């Protein structure tokens, strides 16, 4: 993975969102009142970085980037995209910004290459359609209707369409949704290449693995607010149980006496018969004691697994500490008025 950078004032910001507020509605289930789906999101995206909005479905990620693209009108806060307000974006500003929508936004009856040529025609000096088709492996299905493509193939066409204007800022809404492993590698490599070419890439994802693998800087979004931010290592280190928290799990015959593995700051429990977990500030010496304990019992564990804290732990800890505040209306069962439904977690 590339070197991670903290945003610093020396880097120009491509996108600055401050105190974004977005209401939708009126929502019948709220007696016709408006529902606030983004209450306070602030973020900055820099050139040469991948900035990720990470959050559960319905957290407000798509709404936030659609306000940044000028697709939705905000109800409060400010957005500066390449120094301009996206709500009044002209064709020149739009030519400098690439957008890949979550649903692709491709006409089902079109053929991929014909569509890409049409989109290219909207730019003065577009990138070569052939080069992008080649780079993203689109040639193999170039004459198939978009309707008949797999999710990963559609996603690659949508990505190519968003890149034709060689944008300075690229928005990717759930870029890995529906990708098969091969497409995923191709798309991720391309995102890193774009980052290295100095583009500002803003992506949303509900997949921690995506954020961990791609993002230089992460904003965690929960219930319409940006609750924490940082580089992936920062987030891992700053979390409450941080520095030394590790987990060791192993499988062995049930009912073993694990007292010998305990010490202050370290506990072992049998989470279910035959599955054990040691949790705490594990140190090298603890591994030695574990080995001795096994030897003393003539025990060969069927599996041993050692893990440091993952972004998932951070995310879950944060999500738990920001459970729905009373001011947030209960998600309405009637969803018709709420735009930008997000894809389900696979």
């Amino acid at each position, binding site marked *: 993975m590339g070197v991670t950078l903290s945003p610093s004032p020396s880097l120009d910001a491509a996108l600055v969102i401050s105190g974004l507020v977005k209401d939708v509605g009126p929502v019948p289930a709220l007696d016709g009142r408006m529902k606030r789906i983004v209450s306070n999101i602030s973020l900055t995206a820099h050139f040469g970085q991948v900035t990720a909005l990470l959050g559960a479905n319905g957290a407000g990620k798509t709404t936030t980037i659609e306000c940044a*693209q*000028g*697709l939705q009108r905000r109800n409060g806060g400010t957005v500066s995209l390449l120094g301009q307000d996206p709500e009044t974006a002209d*064709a*020149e500003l*739009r*030519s*400098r*910004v690439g*957008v890949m*929508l979550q*649903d*692709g*936004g*491709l*006409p*089902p*009856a*079109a053929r991929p290459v014909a569509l890409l040529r*049409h*989109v290219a*025609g*909207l*730019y*003065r*000096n*577009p*990138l*070569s359609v052939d*080069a*992008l088709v080649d*780079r993203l492996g689109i040639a193999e299905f170039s004459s198939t209707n978009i309707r008949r493509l797999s999710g990963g193939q559609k996603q690659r066409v*949508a990505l190519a*369409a968003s*890149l*034709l*204007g*060689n*944008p300075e800022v690229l928005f990717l809404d759930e870029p890995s949704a529906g990708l098969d492993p091969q497409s995923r590698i191709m798309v991720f490599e391309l995102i890193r*290449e*774009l980052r*290295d*070419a*100095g*583009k500002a890439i803003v992506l949303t994802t509900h997949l921690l693995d995506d954020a961990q693998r791609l993002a230089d800087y992460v904003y965690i979004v929960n219930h319409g607010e940006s609750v924490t931010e940082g580089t992936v290592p920062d987030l891992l280190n700053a979390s409450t149980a941080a520095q030394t928290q590790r987990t060791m799990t192993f499988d062995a015959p049930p009912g073993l006496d694990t007292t010998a593995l305990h010490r202050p700051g370290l506990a072992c429990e049998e989470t279910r018969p035959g599955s054990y977990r040691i949790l705490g500030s594990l140190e090298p010496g603890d591994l030695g004691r574990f080995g001795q304990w096994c030897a003393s019992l003539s025990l060969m564990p069927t599996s041993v697994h050692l893990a440091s804290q993952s972004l998932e732990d951070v995310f879950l800890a944060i999500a738990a500490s920001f459970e729905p505040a009373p001011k947030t209306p209960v998600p309405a069962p009637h969803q018709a008025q709420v*735009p*930008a439904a997000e894809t389900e977690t696979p």
Partner: protein
Amino acid sequence: MSSLFTDVPPAGAASLARRVLNHGRYEAATMLRNGEQLVLMIVMPLLGLIALAVTPILDGMGHSRVDMATPGILALCALSTAFTGQGIATGFDRRYGVLRFLSTTPLGKGGLIAGKVIAVLVALAIQVAIISTVAAFMGWRPSPGGVLLGIPLLVLGAAAFTALGLLIAGTVRPEATLAITNLGWILLAAMGGIVLPAAKFSDTMAGIVDWLPSGALGTLMRASLIDGRLDIFALVILLAWTAAGSVAAIKWFKWN
């Protein structure tokens, strides 16, 4: 590392004219490749023309059958292409996010609508060429001054029906747009005063038909192509529908 994305000039936006013309051409090609649309746009009006020419429905109105029928059939073309055809296409584009994606490109929302209008005009020009040619072989002889008058009126009719079609496509689900615009086509074609003049209906019915955009366009086309005359009342009605439809579409059209 070499990259597609470095050391290339900024792409920039193509000129407004090029963006809009490109998109108009793309939308027109999409329309003309669609078999169902072609049936609606070419086959149905041709069948209507032939039916009116071989049956006595329009007899006794002071003109030959084909002279009476052709102006209404041309008006029907505008209804088919602008209202039903473009309405349905736009409704599904909206469902699939095509409108949102294209509005983020240099084309923008304004260019997207302008391209759709161009596509309607291109398709309409093709329809008019085919229908007029067939009608001419069947003995249609429009008044020469009336042709010059009829062309801008047909364009106005297309504008009115495009606005109404986009209003429906932008406010309800695409399945509902499909149902409403197809049903609207049948109802307006059969008794909206487009093909059959209001005089063929009862007085009550004729009173309603005169106020419909379909009735107004049918009347305008017949008055100009048969008598070389501009029907001011029908013109005012059609202008009012165009204005109201455009304002409503701008106000209520939802892009997502």
